[in-house]
């Protein structure tokens, strides 16, 4: 019984779930990059987004977690898939671009190392008494500090909407 409880504690602890979802996120992110069929990439990306959502939940940001699913998984990726289906995209033809690929890999690794060393330098401990409830979030978002930005965003979205329609419309 005690052993079972121990196991449960481990499996249900935040950290354990975090590593599980981290692994999933990294694996599916690699899937995005490595699969040659764009539809498969898209589905891998959806898995990444869902894992990230879970991680947001574990990091104490439930609202962002749900938003991640609604916006990224539920809206943006559906749009991607929709376009993929609409354009009936075939898999990429293999082609030699080795120099570029090698340079990219090298630089990417270097970049990861750089950012990694910067970030893991000073350890920041999670703050106590951190209120990330939806109410607190809303109060902050609609405070004078952000409310104008928020309103400006609506104009941005309107502009994007009109722009998207204009760009995608067939020439008359």
């Amino acid at each position, binding site marked *: *019984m005690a052993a*079972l*409880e121990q196991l*449960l*504690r481990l499996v*249900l602890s935040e950290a354990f779930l975090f590593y599980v979802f981290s692994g999933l996120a990294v694996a599916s992110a690699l899937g995005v990059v490595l699969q040659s069929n764009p*539809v498969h990439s898209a*589905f891998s990306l*959806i898995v990444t987004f*869902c894992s990230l959502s879970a991680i947001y939940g574990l990091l104490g940001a*439930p*609202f962002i*977690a*749900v*938003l991640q*699913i*609604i916006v990224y*998984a*539920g*809206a943006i990726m*559906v749009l991607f*898939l*929709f376009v993929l*289906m*609409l354009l009936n995209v075939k898999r990429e033809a293999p082609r030699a671009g080795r120099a570029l690929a090698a340079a990219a890999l090298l630089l990417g690794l270097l970049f990861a190392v750089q950012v990694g060393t910067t970030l893991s330098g000073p350890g920041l401990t999670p703050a106590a008494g951190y209120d990330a*409830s*939806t109410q607190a979030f809303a109060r902050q978002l609609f405070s004078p500090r952000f409310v104008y930005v928020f309103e400006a965003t609506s104009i941005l979205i309107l502009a994007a909407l009109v722009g998207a329609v204009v760009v995608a419309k067939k020439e008359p």
Partner: protein
Amino acid sequence: MTPALQEFLLILLKVVIITQLLLGLFSFMTLAERRLLAFMQFRLGPNRTGPFGILQPIADGIKLFFKEELMPASASAWAFFAAPIVAVTAAFMAIATVPYGPPFRIPGTSISVTPQIADLDVGLLFIFAITSLGVYSVVLAGWSANSKFSLLGGLRSSAQMFSYELSLGMSFVGVIMLAGSFRISDIVASQAGWFWNWNISPSKQLLAGVVYFISAAAEVNRTPFDLPEGETELVAGYHTEYSSMKFALMQMAEYINMITVAVLTTNLFLGGWNPGLPFLPVGGLWGLGYFAAKTFFVLFVFIWMRGTLPRFRYDQLMNFGWKVLIPLAALNVLGTATLVAVFKW
């Protein structure tokens, strides 16, 4: 047994019970739908298997179980498999955060039980999020089979779900503003007392209720919005190529989604487990009873609609969604916001 373990087991138990109940309800619904439709059309419907045909779902299940699994040769195998799984998973996840009644004590023990698997702070949003994931099963199913009927059905269906998701989400907003919370139990609590406190009453969110019900019907592909399955044009839409148990899973997901909608309608607009008449007894099993009655009523309405209304044409469907429902929902949001902000409704 430590409290932590006890809690874990309790949740596990709840999951098992609710899953089983839903599966039972699903098979019952398939029968109920066929029989009720038959009655509406002056037929009898399936009445041969067992008394009143009560064993018909089991017979159907056995049949589907033993049918041959078919997969188109050029299909994308993993996606073809994933689609029904995603569908069922999303359906069950959505219903996991819905409460079915007030907390009650198990007789003879000190254990208090909430008839709900998880009571999230962002419950309603979570449901909305999961519902939006449901589109993927349609997209996957439509794309993976490599068949033009599937693909077109999938495109149509995903466009439809997309469009009606907007009005669906916006119809939540008024309710959320009135309750001041995303938590469904809070929303139910805000409708306590007389039945005119229910959100469906004209003084509260009647408009949102109507918009919600219509959009939800479209979201779960019920008549009159079942055009992905328009036989004359698209055979059976995105699940044309499915057979056997995968087909059964798809059907199951559809019915579970319908039940989710009915349960949510009850919770958000029909007062949840509140009887609506304050002199009636409340709490515990009574609440469960009221809740079940309302939910069954909503389910009945769905079947009724199917027996009554003809199917929309695709352009009508899109026009209705974008030009009627979304403006109405937006109007409702604006109106409610004004009332809440200015008049402290």
